[in-house]
């Protein structure tokens, strides 16, 4: 493994890589406009996403210290994330999603100085999606005061066999709005 990684690049490798990079550019021009990167994760049974550039860090869970007189249903406490004591919120509780069994990672969102971390049950990874696969959320969600859905991602998933292809929806969250909702728990 190590040797494989250490091995010098051949001209062919370089050309192949260059071609791959060029391919992405072509792809992003094609279809319905630009490609967007979203980080897809799960909380309980819900599949959610944030824009990749809104996800500041994704790190394995670490201990969360409850803060006396502040910790509640949504505000969980403080965790040391990359040396920074970060506020941890329970996004599931804030959005009214039934909690999952076992969170695995923290996702850190928000602007510098106003960051929030929340636990996700599983990280599915970064998806590159076409603008055309994104649909506006239903009005019920769009007009709700606590709504933080930016759009919905339509995904066609192959569920076991050719004809069983099913369409599923991922809610793409607006990171800043999600932060604002979490911040309400300590206001």
């Amino acid at each position, binding site marked *: 493994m190590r040797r494989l990684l250490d091995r010098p690049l051949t001209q062919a490798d370089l050309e192949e890589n260059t071609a791959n990079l060029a391919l992405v550019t072509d792809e992003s021009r094609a279809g319905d406009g630009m490609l967007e990167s979203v980080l897809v994760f799960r909380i309980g049974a819900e599949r959610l996403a944030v824009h990749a550039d809104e996800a500041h860090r994704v790190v394995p869970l670490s201990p969360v210290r409850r803060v006396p007189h502040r910790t509640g249903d949504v505000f969980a406490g403080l965790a040391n994330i990359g040396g920074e004591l970060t*506020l941890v919120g329970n996004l599931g509780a804030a959005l009214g999603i039934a909690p999952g069994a076992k969170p695995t990672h923290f996702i850190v969102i928000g602007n510098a100085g106003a960051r929030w971390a929340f636990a996700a049950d599983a990280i599915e990874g970064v998806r590159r999606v076409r603008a055309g696969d994104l649909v506006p959320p239903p009005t019920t969600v769009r007009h709700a005061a606590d709504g933080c859905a930016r759009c919905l991602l339509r995904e066609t998933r192959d569920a076991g066999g050719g004809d069983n292809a099913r369409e599923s929806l991922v809610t793409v969250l607006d990171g800043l709005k999600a932060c604002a909702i979490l911040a309400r728990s300590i206001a």
Partner: protein
Amino acid sequence: MSDLGGFSLHELFKGEAEMHAAALSDGLVRLEGTSDPATVEPLMRAAHSIKGAARVIGLDIAVRLAHAMEDSLVAMQKGREPIVAVRIDQLLKGTDLLAALARVEEAEVPSWSAANDAAVSAIVEALRAAPPTGAVAPSSAPASPSASSSASPPAAAPPDSASVGAAAPGITENAPDASGVEPEEQAPSDTASPATTVPVAPAAAAPPATIASAATPATPSSRASAVRVSAEKLDRLLQLAGETMLESRRLSAVRAEATEIKQDLARLEDELDLLRTELRRAGRDPAAIAPARGILERSRGRVLAHLLTVEGAIRRGEETSTQLYHEVLSSRMRPFADATGALPRTVRDLTRALGKDARLEVVGESVPVDRDILARLDAPLNHMLRNAIDHGIETPEERRAAGKPPQATLRVEARHHAGQLRIRVSDDGRGIDLEALRARIVRKQLASSDMAAGLDCQELLEFLFLPGFSTAQKVTEYSGRGVGLDVVQSTAREIGGVARIHTELGKGTVFELELPITLSVIRALLVEVCGETLAFPLARIDRVVQPERDAIATVAGRMQFLLDDVKLGYADAGAATSIGIVEAGRVLALGEPRADAARANIVVLGSGEERYGFAVDALVGEEDLVVRALDARLGKVPHLSAAAVRESGEPVLIVDTEDILQSVRMALNEGRIRGARPALDDGSRRVLRALVVDDSATVREVERQLLVRMGFSVETAVDGLDGWHQLRDGAFDLVVSDIDMPRMNGIEFVRTLRADGRFASLPVIVVSYKDREEDRLAGLEAGATAYLTKGAFQDSTFADTVRDLVDPSRGAGGRA
């Protein structure tokens, strides 16, 4: 001046003065070319801004100069004065002086001021005088108009310094050797003389001239080594350095893993040896396993070598990262000189006002002091000096009569001693008459005469720290202002140190502060409460006891245990103190206590009679913690003072012992301590937000700091328009605004916001230099809730007003 938010106020002033001086210099040259009064406006504003910034940091010499320049510019703008070259020249000279001052380091300011006082006075006088008679329009000005209107910088073109008269030698300064001497010679009767009364520390008895020149060579190195880094950046660096240290420690796991592989290989070798024996016994050739053995040996050798490499890398990594961490930590330290800059001035003013004569010696200016401690030393140092001058030292006549030199010596000294920062303020004055003090204590009914008679020297002196207790016969403007020595003691205690007084009648008095060297690292006792790790600062703990469950008895329905104080030197012989027990988990609202262990773990907080035992679930141990402020978004969290990250990387919260004691006392008084969790806080707090609008960075910073200290979250805006934009975007509980600002001034700003229904009842404090009644009325008519002058920062007026308008406890929580 204390150090604020990474940059000292003086640094902010320097930046601002430099900027405005440049604008003045350009504008003046342009003005001379055009003679258009309309172009005077920005110049006025520039002079005005410098004046304001200088006033905030108490730089009178610049206030004087900028004020005179501003007046002169106003006269030009209003057409009361012609725009003449001579005047422009004077203004340019003034600008040069301000620009020169903007380059002076804080420590040099007193000597610079002394050296340039005459020059400034001369310019001020020249500006105040009517423009030179026979003055002509600039176009035909005699003073080589070509030179001043040409592109050459004004400083390089001093066309007719003669017309400014006595100011000339001082102004053409920039030659440090000349500057110190000449004004002194030129104007011996002038105000330059204070320097003789209060020589600056290093050159104590030397004449002012030598001070000025002696200070010069010392500065380039210190200037070169100082870099501006914001406090937030530094904190972040510290976090990352801490994380690096943590990561390198985690590498030890790699080492452990490699060691295990080595052990496995050793076992494998044993197995092979067994196999060889077996083979031999079975009559087979043991050499068959020789190749396997060879491979094994090679592997072992490689693992061993690998282990050594890893070992070395880990050790070096740990060393370097630990070093890095401590270096970053130590960069939070600032020289003690940062806190003493304003002291010579204080001494000068006070001795003059009180008819006394003293010189100030500052020793240990380079002693590193934690910036957070430094920021809090201002008040205590000032009070100790005031006290020494007002009460301690005698008049020159009295001193002569007592056989002392007429000039008293005040000494401010800082040094590190036994892991503590020791600050001493001493005088060689009359000392404290203990018998008079004793009589005063009885007269003030603070103790019965029997009791007072039994007090020893230290106990008597303790009374001096009581609020409102003053040994002065009369309340003077300078030391009897309601606040006094109690500030010294309370500050010392808040920082986690002590204040002491030593005195010898007729010889003098010494005030001594013993403070921790840094506030950023504290030694703490870690405990477990309801599954959470909490830290109690060791310095705040009376003791930790682990009484057996049986020893805990209920008295009047409350849990207590008897603490035998005799061995520990408390109270009277044979007495024991009953210490009431409070469940820490309940007070902190973390949950119900666990009462399964055979012994209770009690952390005793408080002192003397006011002690309480906090029952915790487990004692974890002692650890040095690097203190971090709690996230501002949480507001002031009751019972917590800060947070930290343990060496293990685990977060830990640090208990505010004073706050928790206060809560317990209150809860006890209200009978809430028994039963379920004491409802000490409703938790529904939020941080109050304030918007500070001012075009001066210095004023913004002062206001920001004051408000942050009061628990506000503060946003700043540079003028009315910026303020209005910010105001519309965010929910604010308070607005503090200046009047004179570009784009949209304070009056327009207040009018605009009042016209919007949403802000009809928003408290707005206008803080301006303008202190005329008509200005105040204009501000209040526009809709300001309060109108303060910028002098309000010197005392508590600003803070009191803020408190009156917005109750910070609504957001601060914790204390009632």
